């Protein structure tokens, strides 16, 4: 429990550092000669397309999210529309994806019974994040639906409510006792441990879930934009020998595109896995 708490306390610091680093990357772009259009944080707040100024405002990123949702529906509708006992190729692929959550996350951590109970939420989290992450590397969409705080925050709140609900439903006394007064420590230690546990369990967890996902996607997007904008700048603005440098930045851009695919899957997995871990800790009899 201590280890988890420490990791959680560390995580936001790292992510803040990452954000600061990413923002520092932007700075030369803002001060240079105006010809180079580097990435900026405003990219995550594009102009409204519909219902401007209302709670239903739709901008480019919201549209990207809708596209991700539609893609998700298509994949899973086609994949499960006509399921066979002996699966075809596409069905196998869809089943494999669903098995990642069902077997590797839900059943492994929560056991068969609880795993089945929380499977819809975990599956939704995993695939919603995965599809919205992947829009970051898909041409013409080029931005992750999760790179704006809404989705990470909503999902983190869902995770938060879910694990508290799971703990309270199972046994309120045990849940709060295990969360705040871990067994196996002499009582004076509780003076230090209990506030740490309180903050780590009930404050830090949703924040780290939100920030880890969002910052990963923001930084990923900024990095890609930086590489491709630099390529554009070196090849077309400076040209000549600078083209070679441009080829280098292009190569890096492509490499990081692949890396972003990995990050997209990994972040989706981590989010769902951590949610399952929190639920598991909440329903555990004793630590």
């Amino acid at each position, binding site marked *: 429990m201590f280890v988890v708490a420490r990791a959680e306390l560390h995580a936001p610091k790292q992510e803040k550092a990452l954000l600061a680093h990413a923002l520092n990357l932007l700075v030369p772009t803002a001060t240079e000669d105006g010809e180079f259009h580097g990435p900026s944080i405003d990219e995550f707040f594009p102009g409204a397309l519909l219902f401007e100024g209302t709670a239903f405002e739709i901008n480019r990123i919201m549209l990207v*999210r809708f596209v991700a949702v539609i893609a998700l529906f298509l994949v899973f509708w086609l994949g499960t529309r006509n399921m066979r006992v002996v699966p075809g190729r596409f069905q196998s692929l869809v089943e494999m994806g669903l098995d990642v959550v069902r077997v590797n996350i839900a059943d492994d951590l929560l056991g068969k019974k609880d795993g089945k109970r929380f499977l*819809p939420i975990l599956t939704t989290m995993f695939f919603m994040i995965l599809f919205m992450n992947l829009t970051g590397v898909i041409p013409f969409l080029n931005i992750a639906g999760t790179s704006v705080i809404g*989705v990470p925050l909503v999902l983190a709140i869902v995770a938060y409510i879910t694990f508290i609900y799971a703990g309270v439903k199972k046994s309120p006394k045990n849940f709060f006792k295990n969360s705040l007064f871990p067994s196996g420590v002499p009582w004076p230690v509780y003076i230090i441990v209990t506030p740490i546990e309180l903050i780590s369990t009930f404050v830090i967890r949703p924040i780290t879930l939100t920030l880890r996902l969002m910052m990963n996607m923001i930084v990923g997007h900024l990095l890609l934009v930086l590489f491709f904008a630099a390529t554009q700048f070196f090849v077309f603005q400076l040209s000549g020998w600078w083209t070679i440098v441009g080829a280098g930045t292009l190569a890096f851009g492509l490499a990081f595109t692949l890396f972003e695919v990995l990050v997209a899957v990994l972040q989706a997995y981590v989010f769902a896995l951590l949610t399952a871990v929190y639920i598991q800790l909440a329903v555990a009899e004793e630590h």
Partner: protein
Amino acid sequence: MLHAVLSAATEGGETHSPVIPELYDILWSSVCFVIILVFFWKYVLPRVQKLLDERAEAIEGNIAKADEAQRKAEAALEEYTAQLADARTEAGRIRETAREDGKKIVAEAKDTATVEAARVTASAQAQIEAERQTALVSLRSEVGTLAIDLASGVIGESLSDDAKATAVVDRFLADLEASEATAGGKK
């Protein structure tokens, strides 16, 4: 440096902090979440569960079928073995019967042969006896005739009368036997 960026952003008109959520952002995120949740909860996962159940059932069915086949094969083997054992017993029994029959036949043949031999012997003896008797009778009559002829010749008296002749011969023979007896007794 961060300030520079933020001030540059401010110059654009609005200040955007990536960690302050906009209302529309939260709203559309929630809408997406709820839609996907319902989709997975009510459509995808039940179907997958059904499929997994069907698959498990199919596997169990196949196992049951295999068990059934195994059972049948075992039963057939047992039956075959039983039949084989039966056949063996039957063969043994037949062999035994044959042996006994053979023995019996041999014994019967032996008996028959013995009886036949005895019968042949007996008939042979009977024949011999009969011939002896015949010989005896004919001998006696011939010897009588001869003796009478001889005697009649000697005494000049015809003894051709049968009754007389027989009486004479018998008396003669009786005398002979008596004399023999006395001779024997003297001795």
